[in-house]
């Protein structure tokens, strides 16, 4: 028996109601998704059941591997020039800054992205979505952040795609991001979404973040000033890498 969207949505709403009640009792909103989030079926056997053990970061955890221009060519930030022709789809740029919890730029660090093509198909042999591959689009980019933590990718807007979590399950359009901070504890893999996607409320991966304000942090902002006439649409998305310390900041703010 395949689960319906209706059943998955009911499970998600119940969990969000619980999370809302916890906040109403004075708990800080949850900044990260829950690892134990049964509406995302694959999480059921893949989350730890023991509490994580709190540890003081030692030197190795307080530092991060160094990447540089010997590792990444400047051309790798343009996902539209990796083949002979132009890829299909809406050409766009995604730009922003990588910051730490104090607002300091994360300089000269590695940002990696990967995504589906405009039809919602990945260049991956296990992707069985019957949408066409685009011979002019691979969907992988890398960049090293600048002196102000800034990054920019040129790409095309990815399409939404179906998956098998439940019957008629579709992922909202997204770009996968991988980020390194100044400490390895700030390591982050996440996804950037697009404003107004009608699939948000239906998607268990997005909804595994139970706090609406936290979910909104994953949505790129359309910024007309970043659009290039006759060429591309611009989105801005800033990323903050902190770790547990920001949990405390957040909980102080919650009591303001």
């Amino acid at each position, binding site marked *: 028996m395949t689960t319906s969207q209706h059943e998955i949505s009911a499970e998600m709403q119940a969990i969000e109601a619980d999370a809302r009640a916890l906040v109403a009792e004075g708990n800080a909103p949850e900044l990260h998704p829950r690892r134990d989030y049964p509406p995302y079926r694959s999480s059921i056997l893949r989350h730890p059941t023991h509490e*994580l053990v709190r540890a003081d970061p030692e030197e190795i955890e307080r530092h991060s591997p160094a990447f540089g221009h010997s590792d990444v060519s400047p051309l790798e930030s343009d996902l539209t020039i990796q083949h002979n022709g132009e890829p299909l789809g809406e050409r766009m740029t995604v730009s922003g800054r990588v910051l730490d919890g104090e607002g300091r730029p994360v300089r000269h660090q590695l940002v990696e992205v990967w995504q589906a093509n405009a039809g919602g198909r990945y260049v*991956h042999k296990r992707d069985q979505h019957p949408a066409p591959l685009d011979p002019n689009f691979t969907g992988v980019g890398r960049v090293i952040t600048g002196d102000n933590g800034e990054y920019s990718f040129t790409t095309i807007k990815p399409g939404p795609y179906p998956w098998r979590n439940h019957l008629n399950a579709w992922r909202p359009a997204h770009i996968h991001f991988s980020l390194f901070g100044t400490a390895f504890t700030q390591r982050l893999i996440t996804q950037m979404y697009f404003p107004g996607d009608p699939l948000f409320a239906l998607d268990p991966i997005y909804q595994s973040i139970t706090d609406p304000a936290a979910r909104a942090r994953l949505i790129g902002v359309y910024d007309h000033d970043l659009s290039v006439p006759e060429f591309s649409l611009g989105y801005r998305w800033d990323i903050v890498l902190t770790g547990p310390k920001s949990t405390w900041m957040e909980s102080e703010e919650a009591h303001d």
Partner: protein
Amino acid sequence: MTEPSAAPEARYVQTPAQTVGPFYGFALPYDGGAELVPGHHPRAIRLHGTVFDGAGDPVPDAILEIWQADETGALPDERGSLARDGFGFTGFGRAAVDLGGHYTFTTVEPGPVAGGAPYVLVAVFARGLIHHLFTRAYFPGNAERNAADAVLTAVPAARRQTLVCVPEGTGPTGAASYRFDIHLQGENETVFLDFDA
């Protein structure tokens, strides 16, 4: 220079994580990612293991990263983890598991940093794992330092061995082999860490 789009008090709040998903295979792994040193390095070790789920089945779509000090306990600051030159030691490695959930790194045993118990920091990403996990792989030959380690001593004795590699002698190339299996859930669930910043 950049106008914040959110309210100022919300400006520097952590961006949430999301799962690495199933389709990172064409993006994250790279040539040489799992070889922090070449296999012929005189003190190369094999650090390998299998990632298991709560049913005891191997997880075929996990990807691991390690980050560690060098043999002397010095923290690497060399660039070149993505484009290795075969000589420097950058301390960073990345390995996707195979269809049997198995990963292998070629590295060196780290030395003690500031006199502490040496370990390799491990980050685990997988489809179905919504937010990555950190653990540490300690080495069994450092009994005295391990006995004084804050994390090992904080963990109940019954779970402590999940943080220590199992020595397997030396392989055909003469490299010492250590097994570090990772159980995301279940009876032998690995101890995962949450760091106070």
